[in-house]
């Protein structure tokens, strides 16, 4: 338990240093401009939300866009807090991301899963599982809006599960591992009856169980496999969007089968400082508890 707390402090420290390092220049920039980061060069909403692993995305699926609103020769980032509440679990996530030159993004996210019901059923005292996700994403080519090609980015996520007791009992093999993915996103101006529409597809190599919260690998499969994720959405106007996401997942544990994730979301971008995403989510079965549906809400600040 003591080791666990030390780990939490360590990660908290990393996050603080990370946020501290990137904010010094931005605070002065924000003070210099009456509209804060309105002078950042990308269009409203094109930084996306903060996906649960910390990178720019929707709720559960990454996008090819990078966090913040920085264009070429600019930098910017995001900080976020999200909550998923389904029937028997709650997931709290907070984190930050920063990108340079609209080229490279780094991100960090801390996920805390509360599992009172499962802990009670298993008769264990540990009723949370925490995981840290460290991410990097690079825009390879193409553009979200302009030109014919979609924006294509590649990313890496290194995940460290801090509470391996329950995942191990369920048959997971490792408490840390990496995901690698390629994302392609295109926004079509006036694409659906005059409304702007985006299509997004992701191919991810992963051996994570429930995104890593239930560890990595298992008896049914212990190697990275390619899964597909996608999202599609429409802007009702410049500030409001709605869409759906789908995320395929491995099914590595014969003791605790898992299903793909999906959600229906509404996103609000009142300005370039704030965004809110709310969703109805269906996460399937999680660690033997069936039919986990509920809601998701995420608040993001950009700077």
């Amino acid at each position, binding site marked *: 338990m003591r080791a666990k707390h030390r780990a939490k402090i360590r990660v908290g420290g990393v996050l603080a240093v990370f946020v501290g390092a990137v904010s010094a220049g931005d605070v002065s920039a924000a003070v210099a*401009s009456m509209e804060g980061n309105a*002078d*950042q*060069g*990308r*269009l*409203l909403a094109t930084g996306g939300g903060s996906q649960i692993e910390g990178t720019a995305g929707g709720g559960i699926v990454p996008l090819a866009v990078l966090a913040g609103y920085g*264009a*070429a*020769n*600019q930098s910017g980032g995001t900080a976020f807090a999200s909550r998923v509440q389904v029937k028997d679990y709650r997931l709290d996530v907070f984190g930050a991301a920063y990108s340079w030159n609209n080229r490279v993004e780094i991100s960090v996210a801390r996920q805390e899963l509360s599992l009172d019901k499962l802990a009670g059923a298993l008769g264990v005292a540990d009723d949370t599982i925490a995981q840290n996700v460290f991410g990097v994403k690079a825009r390879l080519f193409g553009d979200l*809006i*302009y*030109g014919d090609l979609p924006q294509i980015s590649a990313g890496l996520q290194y995940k460290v599960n801090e509470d391996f007791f329950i995942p191990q009992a369920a048959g997971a093999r490792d408490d840390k591992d990496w995901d690698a993915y390629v994302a392609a996103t295109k926004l079509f*101006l*006036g694409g659906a*009856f*005059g*409304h*702007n529409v985006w299509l997004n597809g992701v191919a991810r190599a992963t051996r994570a169980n429930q995104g890593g919260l239930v560890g990595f690998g298992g008896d049914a499969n212990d190697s990275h496999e390619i899964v597909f994720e996608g999202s599609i959405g429409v802007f*009702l*106007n*410049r500030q409001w969007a709605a869409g759906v996401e789908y995320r395929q997942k491995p099914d590595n544990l014969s003791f605790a089968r898992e299903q793909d994730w999906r959600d229906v979301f509404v996103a609000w971008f009142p300005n370039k400082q704030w965004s809110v995403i709310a969703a109805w989510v269906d996460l399937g079965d999680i660690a033997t508890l069936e039919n986990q549906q509920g809601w998701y809400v995420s608040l993001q600040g950009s700077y």
Partner: protein
Amino acid sequence: MKTFMRTLMMLAAALSFVFLTACAALQPPPDQLYRDLGGQPGVEIIVDNLLDNIAQDDRIFSLFKDTNIDHFRQMLIEQFCHLSGGPCAYTGETMEKSHGGMHITEAQFNALVEDLYRAMERAGTPVAAQNRLVAVLAPMRPQIIYQ
């Protein structure tokens, strides 16, 4: 047999008439966007709003310090009218020439797009027409930035 052939041909003619009429009904007229923007008065309001927004936009205002605003206004009106299918010819210079030496960045280009969206929102332009106008302007981006 002859009657059958004639019936068949009449049927084909009738069907193609229905089909073509339906197509004509579904196909928007070429000046649909121009009309949705509010015709000539609508385009002029949008351009005037845009010029107001540019004048207050620190990100790009300096780009227009040597611009003849009356001429710029006229050229924007002509161009928006022409590109939206309205009854105008664009008499201005090519995009490369008019933006040559300005070294407009991606960020400045997007700032102008934002100012245009705000101009159309203030003019009460329908969202679909806003996006369609931006969509016909967007392909010019390579001739505008970094010239």
